[in-house]
C-alpha cells in the first residue's frame, strides 16, 4: 500500500465478493511506513486474502504490539476493531480476547522484536494453547522504529547499516514453532504475493493458531549489502518448497482435486488445503520430516518458503477447555450467577 492518500471514488467495475464488498472495503488508513517497506506489501496481501474469503469486516479483530509491524493493523479493514497494545504482549491480549469471544476472527500482526525478544514467551505459550488466530511475524531482522539495532532474528554475520556484524545465533520462529507443537507453520516473503495470499487464506480457515513468518525487508535500516534480510538476498536465497491453495467448502473445485495433487488436507471448516507441489518425500503433516527437511536445506543457506506444516487434528484453546459455543462475552448473566438459594445452601459448608 503506497503512502499516498487514495481517492474515495470507486471504479464501478471493481469486482465484488460474496458479501458484495469490493477490495477497497478492506482497506484501512494511509500507511505511514517508509516507501518500499515490505510491511506494506504484506498489508496488501492481507487485504486481498480477506476480500477473497469474504470476511465480514466487523467480525475481524486486528491485534498488534509495538513496532513498525504493529502499526499496520491501522492500514487495513477500517470496519474492524483494532488493538495496538504494548510491546510483545499481543499474544497474551489476543488469547484473552479470543477466550471472551470465539466467534470473531483474530489476526495478530507482530514483528521480530515484538515476537522473538520481548514477547517470545507470550508467543510460545499462545502457540502451545493453540489459540485460534492468524499470527504474522513481519520479520526484517532489525528494530526499525528505534533506528536499526539488530533483532533476535538477525543471522550470524549479517551486517548492520554501519557495517558491524551480528554475533548472536538467530532465533528462527519457524523452527521454534515446530518444536513446541505449532499446528500451522508457514514462511513467505513480502515480495511474493502470489505465495502469501493463498497461505493467508488457508491460515484464516485453520482450526488453531496459524503462524506465518514473512521475511519483510526494512528498506531504511536493513536493505544493504551484507544484510541477510534484504530484498536482494531474500530473492536470491528464497526457495519456494510448497505450493498450496485453499479450496473453500462446498466449492465446485473440490471435484477437480486430481490424483496428481501431492497431498490434500481437509480443514476444520470443510475447506480443502491443496498442495499442488511439495518436494519429493515431503509430507506437510509430518512434523519430524518437515523439521528435518528445513534443517537440511537451511544449512545450505536456503530460505525455505511456503506452507510448511499443518495439523488439523489438534483441538484449539476452546475445544481443550470445553467452553460453551456461546461467546463468554455474550453469556447471559442468568447463566453466570448461581443465585441466592445456591449461596444459602453452599454456606452450610462454612460451619
Amino acid at each position, binding site marked *: 500500500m503506497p503512502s499516498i492518500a487514495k481517492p474515495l471514488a470507486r471504479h464501478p467495475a471493481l469486482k465484488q465478493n460474496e458479501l458484495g464488498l469490493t477490495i477497497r472495503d478492506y482497506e484501512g488508513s494511509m500507511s505511514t511506513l517508509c516507501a518500499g517497506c515490505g510491511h506494506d506489501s504484506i498489508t496488501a496481501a492481507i487485504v486481498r486474502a480477506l476480500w477473497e474469503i469474504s470476511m465480514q469486516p466487523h467480525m475481524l479483530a486486528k491485534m498488534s504490539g509495538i513496532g513498525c509491524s504493529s502499526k499496520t493493523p491501522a492500514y487495513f479493514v477500517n470496519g474492524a*476493531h483494532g488493538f495496538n497494545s504494548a510491546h510483545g504482549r499481543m499474544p497474551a491480549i489476543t488469547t484473552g480476547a479470543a477466550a471472551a469471544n470465539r466467534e470473531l476472527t483474530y489476526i495478530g500482526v507482530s514483528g521480530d522484536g515484538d515476537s522473538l525478544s520481548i514477547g517470545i514467551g507470550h508467543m510460545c*505459550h499462545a502457540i502451545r494453547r493453540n489459540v485460534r488466530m492468524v499470527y504474522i511475524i513481519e520479520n526484517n531482522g532489525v528494530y526499525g522504529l528505534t533506528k536499526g539495532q539488530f533483532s533476535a532474528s538477525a543471522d550470524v554475520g549479517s551486517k548492520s547499516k554501519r557495517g558491524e556484524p551480528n554475533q548472536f545465533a538467530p532465533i528462527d520462529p519457524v523452527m521454534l514453532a515446530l518444536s513446541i507443537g505449532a499446528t500451522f507453520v508457514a514462511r513467505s516473503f513480502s515480495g511474493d504475493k502470489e505465495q502469501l495470499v493463498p497461505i493467508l487464506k488457508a491460515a484464516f480457515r485453520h482450526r488453531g493458531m496459524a503462524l506465518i513468518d514473512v521475511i519483510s525487508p526494512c528498506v531504511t535500516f536493513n536493505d544493504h549489502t551484507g544484510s541477510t534480510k534484504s530484498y536482494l538476498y531474500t530473492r536470491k536465497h528464497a526457495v519456494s518448497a510448497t505450493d498450496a491453495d485453499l479450496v473453500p467448502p462446498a466449492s465446485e473445485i473440490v471435484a477437480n482435486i486430481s490424483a496428481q495433487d501431492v497431498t490434500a488436507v481437509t480443514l476444520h471448516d470443510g475447506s480443502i488445503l491443496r498442495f499442488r507441489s511439495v518436494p519429493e518425500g515431503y509430507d506437510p503433516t509430518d512434523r519430524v520430516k518437515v523439521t528435518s527437511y528445513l534443517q537440511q536445506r537451511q544449512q545450505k543457506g536456503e530460505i525455505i518458503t511456503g506452507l510448511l506444516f499443518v495439523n488439523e487434528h489438534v483441538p484449539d484453546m476452546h475445544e481443550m477447555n470445553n467452553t460453551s459455543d456461546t461467546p463468554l462475552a455474550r453469556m447471559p448473566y442468568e447463566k*453466570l450467577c448461581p443465585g441466592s438459594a*445456591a449461596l444459602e445452601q453452599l454456606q452450610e459448608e462454612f460451619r
Partner: protein
Amino acid sequence: MHEQLRPGVNDFAIKLANVNGTGSASANGLIMQAIFRMGIPVSGKNLFPSNIQGLPTWYEIRVNRSGYTARSLDYDLMVAMNAQTYRQDIREVRQGGYVLYDSSWPLDRNLYRDDVNFLPIPLAQMMNEKFADARQRILLKNIAYAGALVALLDIDLPIVEELLAETFAGKAALRESNRQALHMGRDYAREHFSCPLDFHLAKMNANDGKILIDGNTATALGCLYAGASFAAWYPITPATSVMDAFRGFCEKYRKDPETGRNNFLILQAEDELAAIGMVIGACWNGARAFTSTSGPGISLMNELIGLAYYSEIPAVIIDVQRVGPSTGMPTRTQQGDLLECAYASHGDTRHILLFPANPAECFDFAVQSFDLAERFQTPVMMLSDLDIGMNDWVVPRLKWDDSYRPDRGRVLSAEDLKDIPKFHRYSDEDQYYVPPRTLPGVDPKGAYVTRGSGHNKFGGYTETPSEYQEVVDRLAHKQKAAAELAPRPEIQNGAGSKYGVITIGSCDIAVREAVELLAGRDIPLDYLRIRGFPFHRSVEEFLYAHEVTFIVEQNRDAQLRSLLTLETCVPKERLRSVLAYGGFPLSARNVVEGIVNHLEAGHAVHR
C-alpha cells in the same frame, strides 16, 4: 449471655507450635471449628513458613466472648510440638500459663520455667503403641493433642466427633483411628491433670447467622456472583487459593446443564504480564474478567495496568498482599502494596482501589470491583492480604440480592450506533467523565483502533499537546468522580475526641479493640476505616476535624499516611503513624502501645 460467665471463660488465647508438613493444620483447624460451632467468637491465625516440610509453623487461636478476635500476644496455653522452637515457645507463655508438650522425650532442664505449668503427655509413645503405620502415627499425634485440649478447655466432645465424622465421611477406618486418638489424648489429660483449666470454654450463641470462611474463598465467590466468565492467573502465594476456589465454584455452578459445556474459562498464564494481558483482552471484548495475584505480580503487571488505564479498558485485579520487597516473606502478611497499586504504571496514572477488612467484605467488594471497573472503564484493584485471604474468619453469612444486575457501564449496542452520526471512542462523556465504548463484532460503525499510544478524543493517534492533554485531563476528572461510587469510609465519630484514628483493611478488628481499650484508659478516639481509593471527601473532613489522627497500617513506610498527605491538604504533622510490619497479623496491643507512646512522647500534641 456472656455476662454470667466467669473471668477466663471464653476469653483466652492458645498457640500451637508444630513442624510443617506433619498434618497439624487439620487438627488445629478442627479445634478452631469446634469452638466456632460452640457459638463462641474465635479466630485462627496460621503463621506458616514458605516451605513444604520441616520448618516451624504456628497456629494461634483466640477466643473472645466480646468478639475481639484480632491476634493476641498473650498466650495462656502453648501446645509445644516442635523441639526446634521449644525455647522461644516456652518463653512466650504468660506467667501462670501452661505448656503442653510431648513427654515421649525428656524436656531439657534448661527450658523449664518456674512461673508456668507444664502438661507432659507422651503423645508419640502412645501413638507408637497403638498404631502400626508410621505416617499415621505422625498425623494422629496431632489429633491426640486435640483430644487433650478437648478435656483441658472443655471443648464439646459431640461437636468434635461430628466434625470428624464429616471430615471422614465414607472413610470409616480413618474416622475410627482419628476417634481413638482423640479419646486417648482426652483420657490421658483427664487422668493426669485437673480438667478443665481455669480458663476454658462454655457454649454461647454468638455465631448464629455466621459462617467460618477465608477471604480468598469469599473473593472467589464474589467473582462468581459478579458474573466473571474469564480469569487468568499465575500461581503465587497467598493468592493461589482465590483461583483454586473460583475453579471449584465454576465446576460446580457453571457447567451448562443442557450441554455440559463450561460457561467459564480459566487460563494459567505463563507469567503475570500475560495474566493481566489476557484479562485486558477479554474485558476489551466484553467479558467480565479478573486476575488474582500478590505484590510481585502487581510489579510485573504495572506495564499493562497503564495500558488499560489510558486506553480505558475495564479489568479487575485481586491483590492478596504479602510481605515485600522482592520475594520478601511469601507466607506472611503485610499492607505493603498501597502506593504501588494507587499509582501503578509509568506516566500519570491513578487507580480505583477497594480495601476489604474481612472475608465478608471480600465477597461484597469483589462484586463492586467489577461494577466499578465497567462503570469507569478502568482497572480496579481489590487489596486483600494474607491474613484475610488465607485465615478462617467468623463473619455474618453472605447475602445475595437476586435483583442484582451487573453495571456494564456505557457500552453501545448496534441499535445505539444507528442513532448517532459517527462514533468517536473518547468523546461524549457522561457525568462521571466516562465516554461510551463499543465491543468488537457488533457493528462496523463502532470500529476503532484501541491504542496505548497518544490519542485524541476521537480515538485517533496524536502527538499534539492540546489533544493529548484533553484526554488525560478527562481521565483525572474520571478518577475523582470514582470517589463518589467507590466504597465509602466507615466512620465512628461518637467519641467527640480531638484524636482520631484511621486504619485500613485487616487492621480493623485490632484497631477497634484498641479503641475500646484506650477508652477504658480515658483516651477517647474517633474512628475511620478507609474502604476505597480515590478517597471520599469525608476522609479529608475527618482529618480536619481532629487535632491529631493516628494512622494505623501494616508497612514500614507509612504508605497510607503518604497517600493521605498526597491526596488531601491536611498538614502532615497532624498525622501520626502507628506501624506493624513484621509479617504477623496486627494485635490490639501493637496499636495501644503505639498510640500511648505518641501521647507520652508529647509529639502528638506539641509538634
